[in-house]
């Protein structure tokens, strides 16, 4: 009974930590342990790091940053970042926006809300974008829109499939209409890539909302989602305020979208690399057959 032993041991240790917390002040260092928002149990950070940031107790997917995702999805040393130094300016002189940008880059250690580049997924060359939840909730301003459009243009020119991980609170209101228009701009990039007969797979992660849902997140040929990810145009709070009624449980979760027919499948993080590479392999034979003219 290997599994029993595996689960039992950390639990006892954690209970010890809990007791320690109640009796004396020096609590568990947060860098060692985290509490799972779904099952409320304490989990070792190292266990999370070794298991795709998935709760070993209940399977809850913790939010993860863009660099962690890139390491998880791409083959070692294959990722080559594009435009890493593009950063936003406060074109509308919106109050407090400059400070917010500074805070966001200190907090996330990134220059903007998306990382783009090329890399290999089990040997398949792809153009990859991964949005960063820690940079102003992955909101889309001009730089996010520009980097994503540049990536689609690059992929179209180099005949590459695009794989994209979305996480976003929507259009960045501090950039006003210039942020909203990024929805149209990125959609133009996706459309040209699509018309060139190239594959685009999106993986929607928690939360994907607003202007990103209503543009490139929902425009992919194949749309995957992480378990229980919130995927919405209008967030649940906005809807509750508008219609003044409580929303049913599980509303706007990935499972709900699957049932309603808006996503192709739900893939837990530990299976994402494999699933992506299988899909890429199925699309890697040129149209009209291979060089011998047959399939």
């Amino acid at each position: 009974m290997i599994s029993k032993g595996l689960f039992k041991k950390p639990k006892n240790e954690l209970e010890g930590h809990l007791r320690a917390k109640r009796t004396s002040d020096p609590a568990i260092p947060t860098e060692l342990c985290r509490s799972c928002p779904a099952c409320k149990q304490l989990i070792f950070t190292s266990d999370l790091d070794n298991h795709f940031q998935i709760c070993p107790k209940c399977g809850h997917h913790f939010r993860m940053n863009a660099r962690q995702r890139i390491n998880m999805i791409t083959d070692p040393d294959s990722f080559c970042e594009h435009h890493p130094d593009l950063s936003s300016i406060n074109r509308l002189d919106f109050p407090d926006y400059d400070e917010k940008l500074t805070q966001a880059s200190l907090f996330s250690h990134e220059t903007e809300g998306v990382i783009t580049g090329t890399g290999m997924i089990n040997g398949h060359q792809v153009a990859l974008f991964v949005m960063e939840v820690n940079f102003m909730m992955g909101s889309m301003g001009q730089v996010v829109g520009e980097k994503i459009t540049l990536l689609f243009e690059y992929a179209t020119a180099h005949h590459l499939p695009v794989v994209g991980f979305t996480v976003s609170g929507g259009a960045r209101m501090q950039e006003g209409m210039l942020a909203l228009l990024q929805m149209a701009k990125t959609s133009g990039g996706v459309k040209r890539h699509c018309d060139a007969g190239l594959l685009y797979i999106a993986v929607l992660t928690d939360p994907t909302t607003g202007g990103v849902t209503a543009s490139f997140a929902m425009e992919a040929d194949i749309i995957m989602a992480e378990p229980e990810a919130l995927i919405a145009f209008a967030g649940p709070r906005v809807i509750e305020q508008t219609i003044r009624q409580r929303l049913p449980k599980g509303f706007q979760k990935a499972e709900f979208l699957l049932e309603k027919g808006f996503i192709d499948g739900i893939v837990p993080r530990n299976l994402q690399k494999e699933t992506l590479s299988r899909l890429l392999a199925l699309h890697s034979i040129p149209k009209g057959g291979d060089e011998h003219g047959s399939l």
Partner: protein
Amino acid sequence: MEAYKRVALARKKTRPTGQDFIDNIFTDFIELHGDRCFGDDPAIIAGLGYLLDMPVTIIAQERGNNTKSRVRRNFGSPHPEGYRKALRQMHLAEKFNRPIVCLIDTSGAFCGIGAEERGQGHAIATNLMEMMSLKVPVISVVIGEGGSGGALALGVADEVWMLENAIYSVISPEGCASILWKDPSKTKEAANCLKLTAQDLLELEVIDKIISENHRDFKNVFQELKLSLYKSFRKKQLVAPEVLTQNRYNRFRKYGALENTNHPEN
């Protein structure tokens, strides 16, 4: 004029709505209903008519002009089937080589259970993508309130015009004030910061033209729109479809393109 005054004018109850613009600009209008998937959305009116001697496709958001019609029109907030109806008409226009006029007037795409269940995000995204490659001329005019993605879903056009007292914004000033400052009393300040007036947006090159208005009498507005639309379509009909779609792509490609962004390490 202060931005919030424009917001109030754009939302004024006596302001002409989409149907009034259709009645006063086009002749022989025939409304065509339904998205062929789920239903017909009264918040969007779509159909055919003549612009002087030119057959055109018209798609207009409609708020309603009295309590009963406002309820029926859902106050001009479309559901996904409204956007799908619009797209169906746009594809028909493409098939029969008709220019398309979109009249934008909505506080936003509807936020509700049914709208989410039927894929509001998906419907808007599909319109953005498909409008980008329509092979016929498209002109969108913001006639009242241009509310976020729900407005942009009819706004991917060769030219975007605004009435003098119309607004076009990423979020309503009320929403901005309550989300960003957690203080609904800062609505006026938010309206200023968002740069949502026609004058601001012309400076930012978000729109191409302002139609001046006397907000008590819209006769001149209708007349000017009729002539300007006609002239612009005549010009655009001479342009090859590939050039037309390339120009449309470039029009939206320029927002936030590399020259507007900082290169701190270069």
